[in-house]
């Protein structure tokens, strides 16, 4: 670092990964700066989700290195990577993936509870984020009682409740209609910009990508193009 450019919150260098014989990533290098919103786009099967999973430390790539928030993920064991994600990273997947038998409130409070916060504090923070997500009337509901859009907004609230420095979202609007998708993006991108968190959005939707500062387009596991949008 030269002192003028802030250190990237995420830096991938020559990342390679394969599932048996299918190569998903072929030596990808990229970085994400603090407060930056980056869209990773490309056709189905180009390696977008694998890239996100490797960047978040969910998948350990078979080659190259990933530095997330100053930490080399290759040097961390699974527990350390999980703890890092829990404390400083938020993740939103396509279908919300909420814990089915917990109430929406407890789902959102869960990262704080796992971190050792007392229940009252965790619930207060969760209630705050649920209100901001427009789900104040749904706190006692279970995930099965929510619509797809509501479940995704609850997942966003869960991702934001710990105040993460980086948020990863994998096709967050993939299961929603246009209006629901717009609402969700407003919440996600708005919260990231407001809190100064970096946001990495994996999407194949150009409308979603248009919300980003920069678009990284993948094809066949390599970076095909990088476009600065704003």
């Amino acid at each position: 670092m030269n002192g003028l450019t802030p250190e990237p919150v995420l830096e991938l260098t020559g990342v390679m990964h394969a599932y048996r014989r299918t190569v998903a990533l072929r030596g990808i290098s990229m970085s994400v700066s603090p407060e930056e919103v980056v869209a990773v786009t490309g056709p189905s099967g180009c390696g977008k989700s694998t890239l996100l999973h490797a960047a978040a430390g969910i998948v350990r790539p078979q080659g190259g290195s990933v530095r997330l928030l100053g930490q080399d993920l290759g040097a961390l064991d699974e527990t350390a990577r999980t703890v890092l994600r829990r404390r400083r990273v938020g993740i939103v997947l396509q279908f919300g993936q909420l814990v089915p038998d917990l109430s929406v409130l407890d789902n959102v409070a869960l990262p704080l509870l796992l971190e050792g916060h007392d229940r009252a504090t965790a619930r207060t923070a969760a209630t705050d984020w649920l209100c901001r997500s427009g789900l104040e009337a749904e706190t006692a509901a279970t995930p099965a009682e929510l619509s797809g859009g509501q479940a995704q907004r609850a997942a966003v609230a869960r991702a934001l409740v710990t105040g993460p420095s980086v948020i990863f979202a994998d096709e967050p609007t993939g299961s929603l209609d246009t209006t629901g998708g717009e609402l969700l993006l407003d919440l996600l991108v708005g919260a990231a910009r407001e809190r100064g968190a970096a946001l990495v959005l994996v999407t194949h939707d150009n409308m979603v990508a248009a919300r980003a500062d920069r678009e990284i387009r993948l094809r066949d596991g390599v970076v095909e193009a990088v476009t600065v949008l704003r």
Partner: protein
Amino acid sequence: MRAHTLRLLAQPTAAAERGRFLLVTGSIAVAGGLLLVGQRVARLYMDTDGASSTYSYGGLAPSYGGLAPYVTQAGLRPGVVIGAVLVTVPVLALALQALRVGSLARERRMASLRLAGATARDVRTVAAAEAGVAAAAGGLLAGPAYLLCWLMLGVLMPAGLRLVPTPGPLDLLAWAATLLVAAAAGAIAGAVVQKRVVAEPLSVRRRIGPQPPGRANVVGLVAGLLLVVFGFGQLTEAPGGGEYLLLVVVLVGLLLVAFTIGPRLVRRLGGRLQLRESAVDVLVGARLHVDPQTAGRVAAVLVVCGLALGVEALMVSDLLGRDIGNGDDLSFYLTGFGMAAVGVLLVVVVAVLTLLIGAADQLLDARRPLASLVALGVDEQILEKVLRRQQSAAAAPAVVLGVLVGAAGAAYLSGDGALAVGLLPTLLVAAVAGGAVGLVTRLAAVLLRPRLRAATDPENLRVA
């Protein structure tokens, strides 16, 4: 993880989770109750105030309150104790099977927990707490279960046939120990079962695939064989009293052999079925070959049941063919055999229940491929046939094999002529037992029909 978080995450709220909890609790309660019965019968010698507890047939002391000679006679009592303990084996296997149930919903929950930031260890802690609490509840209910056994087998039975003595103060201690052991064993089992599952934060869960029998299996098999050979070799020469210890050695060896060889035989059977031309056989064979554990364990239990039936068949036919004195003696023996047969029946029911639960779990697990098969044009009736064959393919041969081996072993111990007299009854018992197990598995397939229908719902094609 703090206690309130663990409590929040470990409480069963979904229907499948509650069912799992109840099954574990119920199984442990029954097993615990039987163990308490076993220890109470074993402690009966303490009630004699130091006097000899050996009585002649039918000679019951008034203080024994009409207890059957099978428990009052020092020579027969260990048999009852061993029987009570043996019945707990399949019941505990059922509890273990129950811990694996509800896998899809459950593993999705665990994956969601991982996504929310729970470490793999947190997830195992939750699983251990869930199982530990369920098992502790079972341990707690073991006391009432024991009292129920006492009521049914000790109070309501006619004098002279009562098997369970009146509970004493020491039973409270035994109950407390049962509770503690159940809770600890449940927690350990829960963590171990969870360890076989790779819960990752992604929506797609990945399970460590069913494993073929490994090195531990070989060690268990060799140890079991050694125990059987040693025990059998010494059994005919053992001095008075020592024969029960040797019988326990043989039984432990047989259980080891049955539980280690069961999955091997089922896997091999699956491999052979896969080579056949029929689509049903190929589907059944593939399933048994990939996951021989559940069917193998149940087959092991059924082999042991068959062994008991085979021994009984030979001994009863041998008994009826001899002049053994007055009618009371004959009734004494036949009543004993009848009781043992009821015990075996109970075990068979529990074993088939275990199969049923395993199959239901598997249907849940395989709902997408099953829905795909139906979408491809495979008739639902064919799938039901697959399910039925899957249950009976190993179970029926296992019980028949057990009957034949049991009868052969009993003939060896009884001496010349026993096999000749008992051959026909043994074959008859083998046929009836095999047919009965086949019938019960057919009934199980009928019970599973709604589950199968749910699994083949086209909506499941969209399941991740």
